[in-house]
């Protein structure tokens, strides 16, 4: 165990000597895909609950496809599948984008978490108490202002517990990244396992790192919930 830590701690945390690896890569994947998923999912969630079928149906289809297929297959599709097409390799910008494993991984992860987040936010918007909307209307707010001032802030707050779950699941999902040659924490653990045959400690160490990240994520979401969901806490007797 000590030997493994001494030899591999750098690779586990940030570099294998030539490139980023381990924790740094996992966190980068997580932060970028979650940020993309969050910002893209707010307009998509509004479209998803829209009365217009032209708006809601395409979003429904997008989230159905990305929630209905395994992330692993999505990653293989973007990494191996797309790049085997001549049209992708012939168009310069597509060739540049899909050549890099990192880009394919972020694309797959971002779209995947975006689909789940859209459904979480759409559910929260649908569950907005009618009184809040009525109150807004009584003030003479138009639809845009109503969404901006009342519905979105209220929905995002109520979505926090479900959203924190999605972020942690996304962290776990990053372990498939090495399929696209992106060297995350699990890849380093596999290196250690292949080099030492000490499977217990190799994977145990990786599990410990994931536990630490989850611990920090849970603490952050606790803090966020106690701040933004204070109004929904049960009253003290």
């Amino acid at each position: 165990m000590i030997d493994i830590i001494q030899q591999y701690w750098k690779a586990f945390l940030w570099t294998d000597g030539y490139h980023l690896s381990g924790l740094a890569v996992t966190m980068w994947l997580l932060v970028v895909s979650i940020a993309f998923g969050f910002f893209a999912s707010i307009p998509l969630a509004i479209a998803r609950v829209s009365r217009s079928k032209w708006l809601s149906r395409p979003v429904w289809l997008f989230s159905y496809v990305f929630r209905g297929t395994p992330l692993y297959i999505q990653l293989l599709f973007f990494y191996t599948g797309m790049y085997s097409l001549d049209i992708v390799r012939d168009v310069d910008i597509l060739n540049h984008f899909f050549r890099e494993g990192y880009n394919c991984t972020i694309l797959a992860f971002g779209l995947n978490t975006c689909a789940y987040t859209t459904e979480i936010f759409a559910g929260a918007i649908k569950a907005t108490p009618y009184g809040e909307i009525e109150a807004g209307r009584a003030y003479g707010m138009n639809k845009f202002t109503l969404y901006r001032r009342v519905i979105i802030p209220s929905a995002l707050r109520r979505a926090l517990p479900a959203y924190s779950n999605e972020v942690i699941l996304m962290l776990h999902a990053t372990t498939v990244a090495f399929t696209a040659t992106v060297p995350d924490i699990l890849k380093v653990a596999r290196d250690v396992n292949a080099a030492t045959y000490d499977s217990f400690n190799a994977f145990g160490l990786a599990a410990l790192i994931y536990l630490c990240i989850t611990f920090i994520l849970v603490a952050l979401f606790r803090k966020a919930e106690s701040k933004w969901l204070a109004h929904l806490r049960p009253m003290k007797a």
Partner: protein
Amino acid sequence: MRKVITAVSLALMATSFGAFAKDWKEVRFGVDASYAPFESKAPNGQLIGFDIDLGTEICARLKAKCVWVENDFDGMIPALKAKKFDGVLSSMSINEARLKEINFSAKLFNTPTRMVAKAGSGLQPTAASLKGKRVGVEQGTIQEAYAKAHWAPGGVEVVPYQNQSLVLADLASGRLDASLQDAIQADEGFLKKPEGKGFAFAGGDLNDPKTLGTGAGIGLRKEDTDLKAAIDKAIAGMLKDGTYKKIEKKYFKFDVYGK
């Protein structure tokens, strides 16, 4: 029925003579039958391949009964230590990390490591020729160790992959400039197939005992020194009397024993 008779008669012979036969009436070999032409399964479920024939011959010379136990390659060393079987006969390369855990018989064969690139690319398996190029290797293989030790410091982009089929897929699609792997695996699994059209071996066999090891042997428990002595004697015997060459010819057109 005939097999049973042979086994019984072998066992009877084993009990009547032989010094080590007293201890090793039965030798159990662990095998991962997923690596043709070394070890694989015939459509009827029977184990076939170069390793299987070598093992059968070794058992005959030991006057012991051969029992084959199927096991995943990943878990071979723990299973060997847990006495699920007595030897690993599954194209296991002899290297330093494995020697810390287990012992090996004398070398059974040493397949060459070679680079594959686009035909006519002019690339050579040297750091100078590959500078700035992307070379794919399978994670955890001796080839990865070689590329990282000799090429990565010279500015070659060495990209490890989860498995060999992903390496070859990216070589075919043009993401990689070259790939480094076992020559037989590249030949059987890629170059001879339609997707390997336009690709060829680049440069000759690579040699480096430190990373590429000294070939494959039978993995044995460290305490079974008597079994190692017996197996080594059997291997030396079949190399000497031409039995090895005879078995080799069944599978390979070239010298698989190597240097």
